[in-house]
């Protein structure tokens, strides 16, 4: 998917000095190439950001949330530009069906019905990419043609966008949860969960001790004879026990050769340490660590 986007972006045939103009020129040559739309926050600002737009293309028709031919892919969406603003900006090109803003390009996720207001909440940060789905394919060209016009405005008098202090105050207000609503949601979720767990357990109880078609019996921790749990920790524990058992059986310093071995080992240890220390000293000397003042 990601690769599919890149192919289109990697070969922009553009000439000229100004970024905006160049991109616009390219737009007319290829349907898949990019167009740059200048966009400003409000009238007051002087320097625009450039939104890069192109028709959304995928190799196979896998991306069902963003149907090909009528989805506009928008790059470099400034942080203060939310879905509402985008949809308003592009509504002049045709009816907008949906706007999907995300961190990086990727297949649209199926809208999850269970997504809740309180949990799985992801705040969008910084510059984003967006998929704008129009009702009609014709709107794509119209959108690209916007690059010929003056900068688009995100915040207008009729539709002001909140930033700064007013935005933070609003989000402080929004962070207050209604206990009743939250409680209701939690209760509903837990009921579902309990039901699911109960079903699973019932299923497991049914399978308990019943051989499958090849004659294997599944051992669970519920049964009469619970087996070892299949975890990494349990495996390590068993190995450790084995080792200890073996060590107990061994005799230490019993034979003369064992004595010799230990002595040899001691000298070898001393040598090794000496060698390591020499290395460390060499390193420290190199860093002039021995100048007392």
């Amino acid at each position: 998917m990601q690769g599919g986007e890149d192919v289109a972006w990697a070969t922009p045939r553009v000439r000229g000095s100004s970024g905006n103009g160049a991109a616009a020129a390219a737009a007319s040559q290829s349907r898949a190439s990019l167009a740059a739309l200048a966009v400003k926050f409000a009238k007051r600002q002087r320097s625009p950001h450039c939104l890069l737009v192109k028709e959304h293309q995928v190799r196979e028709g896998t991306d069902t949330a963003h149907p090909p031919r009528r989805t506009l892919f928008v790059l470099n969406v400034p942080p203060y530009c939310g879905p509402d603003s985008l949809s308003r900006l592009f509504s002049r090109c045709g009816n907008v069906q949906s706007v999907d803003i995300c961190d990086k390009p990727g297949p649209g996720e199926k809208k999850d019905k269970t997504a809740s207001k309180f949990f799985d909440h992801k705040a969008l940060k910084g510059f984003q990419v967006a998929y704008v789905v129009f009702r009609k394919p014709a709107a794509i060209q119209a959108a690209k043609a916007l690059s010929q016009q003056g900068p688009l405005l995100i915040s207008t008098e009729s539709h002001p966008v909140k930033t700064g202090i007013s935005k933070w105050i609003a989000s402080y207000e929004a962070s207050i949860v209604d206990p009743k609503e939250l409680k209701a949601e939690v209760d509903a979720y837990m009921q579902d969960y309990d039901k699911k767990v109960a079903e699973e357990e019932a299923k497991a109880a049914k399978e308990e001790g019943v051989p499958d078609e090849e004659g294997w019996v599944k051992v669970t921790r519920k049964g009469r004879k619970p087996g070892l749990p299949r975890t990494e920790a349990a495996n390590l524990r068993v190995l450790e026990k084995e080792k200890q058992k073996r060590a107990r059986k061994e005799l230490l310093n019993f034979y003369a050769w064992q004595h010799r071995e230990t002595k040899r080992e001691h000298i070898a240890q001393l040598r090794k340490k000496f060698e390591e220390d020499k290395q460390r000293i060499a390193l420290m000397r190199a860093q002039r660590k021995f100048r007392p003042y």
Partner: protein
Amino acid sequence: MGGARAAGPMGGAVPSRAANRERRSAAGGARTEPCCAVFSPQGSPEAAEEAEQGPERRAGGAVRRGKRAAPAAADPQPAKLSRAELYKPPTSEELTQLKETEDLFHSSLLRLQIEELLKEVTLKETKKKKIDAFLHEINSLLGAIPETPETELTDQAWLSEDVKVPFLQVPFNVKGRFHFVPPAELKVVGSYLLGTCIRPEINVDIAVTMPREIFQDKDNLNQRYHRKRALYLSHIAQHLSKEKLFGSVKFAYMNSNHLKPILLLRPQGKDEKMVTVRLHACPDPGLFKPSRFYPSKNNVRTAWFMEQSSPKEGATEPPTPHYNNSILCDTVMLSHLHLLSNAATDFPGMKDGLALLKVWLNQRQLSKGLGCFSGFLVSMLVAYLLMKRKIVKMMSGYQVLRSTLQFLATTDLSVTGISLAKDADPSLPVLDDFHQAFEVVFVDPSGLVNLCADMTASKYHQVQFEAKRCMEILDDRMVDGFQVLLMTPKPMLRTFDHVFHLKHVSKLQGTCKKMQLLNELMDRGGNYVAAALPFVVSLLARGLSQRAQLVAHSLPQISEWPIDAEPPKHKDIGPLTFGLLFVPEFAASTLEKGPQADHLEALEFRTFWGEKSELRRFQDGSICEAVVWEASTVCQKRLIPEQIIRHLLKLHADIPESSICYTGALLESVIRTGKEAWGTGEEAMVSVVCSYDDLSRKLWNLKELPLTVTAVQGVHPALRYTDVFPPIPVKPIYSFHNRRKHLLLPSEEKPCPAYITPLKIICHMEGSGQWPQDKGAIKRIKAAFHLQLAELLRQQHQLVCRPAVTHTDVYKDGYVFRLQVAYHREPLILKEVVTPEGMLKYQDTEESRQLELETLHLPYLTSSLHGLQQQHPVFGSTSRLAKRWISAQLLSDSISDECVDLLVAFLFLHPAPFTPPSSPQVGFLRFLNLLATFDWKNNPLIVNLNTGLTDSDCAEIKNKFVAARSRLPVMFLATPKDQWSSMWTRERPSAQILQRLVLLASESRRALEEQLMDPLSDQDVKMVFRPPLDFYDVLIHLNPNQIPRHLESVDRPVKSASRGVVKNSSAMNILFPVVDYDPVQLYLQELRDAFDDLALFFYDKHGGEVIAVLWKPLSFQPQPFKVSSMKGRKVTTLNNELVCVPNVEAILEDFEILGEGLVKSVEARTEKWTI
């Protein structure tokens, strides 16, 4: 700087240098030095390169800074010996060496370290030859100086104008005649011949024997000998100064004793720094009768000294032991040399041991000045120990050091003196005579000279204290003894808890008068500093006897001067500095309890304390004399010693308060909360903890909760006493806010409300089979708990709560606590992974790690540090100062709070070679020093909290650290519960930030110490808390009305907007205040989210008015077009290629848009960069 996170610590320096180079080229030369200087490594690439080629260079020998091989990228890994080499049969030599190392040294590493140090400090052979040649030339020059005609001592007209007599001739008139005759004998004496002189100051002492015919009878009287000696030297100086051989000819006082001038000769040219030849004039042996100089004899007549015409009838002359001693010293120079050279023969360890001891003394600033513990003295001490067989000639240098320290630690020479004299001649004075005359007694072989004559008892106690401390360190296997004993300097400011200066030593003249020290003045030749000092110090020691374990003073020092200048006066020693080392338990007590009123000692007590002493009845019914000091807050109590010192010095020594500059608590103003009377926040912290304890009790006993609360643990810094500005109980003003139901909201029309910090508390719930075993379900259950906790606290304890999904805020006693429920198995469940074979494995994920940090490690750390605070009451304040400094330098977001706490904890847990700090100031100075000098690249910082690590653990950590260095964080902290991962420094600081911290710390420390040691300047210690802003690229100025913590800034604003709260803790409250709402932090978060890959943002969270922005140079280079890197950039063409560059104009406008209402202006310093 952008991609440097990956660089790792070892190579950290190198990539950033590359980054700098790129940055410079990217800027097309327009961007110049300041920013590079700031973020560039200070010489560390060189160090790294040298480290890599260390072994080769050794092979190359003398080539020091010659050509460098291209730096190899590999870390120096410990070389492995092959198996064959490890197990080959040992030779006998090798065996003895290994054995010797085991017996004579602590470890082989220590042995090697000491060898390296000795190489570093001892004199090279080549230099020796040069010095010898120089000495020969001096010898021949001295013989050729012409004689002069005989004149009266007071007639100094024969001396040329270019030379001033290096002697304070007060009173000027004295009998006697002088003429110059070339020296009878020249002898090199002292450390040069013994081979024990050490760099950097190589001194060669030459004893110039003045011929007998210069002297007359009674020259022992009234400084006549001393004046002749001075005249003799000035005549020599006059002649030698004309010679081209010398780079400089100067006078100095021997050990700053103004009776004993010496002549300093240095060679010409580049060798000038190499050596200083010191000429001592001494009398012909046998000139004086020794019995005249016994400690009880008088040699300075009162009448002469007071310039009276005739002596008073019948008055006995007082003894002048110091004066006598100063003459005797000159007569025994040669015999001391013989003694030492006898000791040093066949004793290679002595030379090494003395070198080590001298380094040890130098690092402690004990070896210079009047009454110092000089290198000569320590040599004599070693000779004494050899005589007493405490040292044998078999010993190594390390063992000599150890035995000497052991002796010093256990012997108090101020009580039981020692003597080198072998056969007791009954006519000689006994030790008791010496003890009466001197404070410290160490008699030389002749039985006449006290080698420690000028030393005060306090100085000796300091030496003794240091020796004791060092013996403890050497026996402690956890400490790198070599490093702390020999390599760490101990300046007074960092050693003592409180330091104060006597600004004008001339005030000591008044002290001499007040204390009636005429005899001492005569004895000391009019040096009122030397005369008064022992009395002042013992006065202080008595006054602080309960509170201070050590009262030390700096040694008066007079630097050398050119021969045509007048000799320095007594007051030219500059300010005198005193240091106090406290007993933490008693230092801050407000009561000084004296004897019972009817006892005899009561009168003495009363005279000692003066008017401050009053009769008081105590609880046990006794009525005693007592002194009570006024102090209400902890920070005032810490300054009780100051009150005592000022009082005693005024009362007994006539030293006015204005002459005392007390630098005990100058820094505390930056952590002061609000008004003067509120103190420095210790009390506020205690009341927070009380309220927290109460809340946790309530939580424990909460009824109707389905599962019980098993543990309540605080994690907020205030709950471990290290919050820079502890929360103060407040009550909101309703009219200031908007409201929704029972909650208050910030209002757009009003200034931002005061910042109320939520005090986070982890509330562990009982484990039970009822907990679900699924991530999502656990989250929901926790949310349900938060709701229920809020509900129950409201019902059972009438507390106002604000529940949320991840926590519940509780408003109690004017504080807001944030409760977070934890289930101990949740991290484990987050870690679960099932392998394809169906095996259950546990793997760390980002989420699980975060949760573990919050619910497991942070509570543990908090309780450990809470415990540390109980042992060391200034831990919290030190940590707060440290954090305040880091935040003032705009780096608080670049290093974690916990990391700073641990660094400070290190200072308390591993103070060697110091003692644990007992004042925040000394703690802070040591913090800066630690940051600036610790070798983060090669060493882990091990913080042994609760002594949970053994020395083998430490060794293992060190070894593993070396092996895995490149994969570990740049700053590696190990604690007992976190030995391998350094969890508090994993993400922050980055290599560049650490470098900057190190640089800032060393600069701040230098500036601060300079100021604190200079009482005559106006001490503006806040200077190190004001960050330099000139190297940032963009400054975002903020509207002070919207900065909730505006009042916390270093320079407190004169006026600041009302914040809609009143200080209150008692009243019941119905409406919940605005919590954790700091627009500046929200703004910073948005800026970092949006522009993280383009710029770094710096801010002082304690009331800063400016956000400083630094562009990342790497991201300013034009980059090839890529979908993922388009953020905030625009497309342009460069050399016919499509590239994208940051859309800077638009970004600058974004700064204003995102901070609407908060940002006052954006100042782009385009002169520093171009696009």
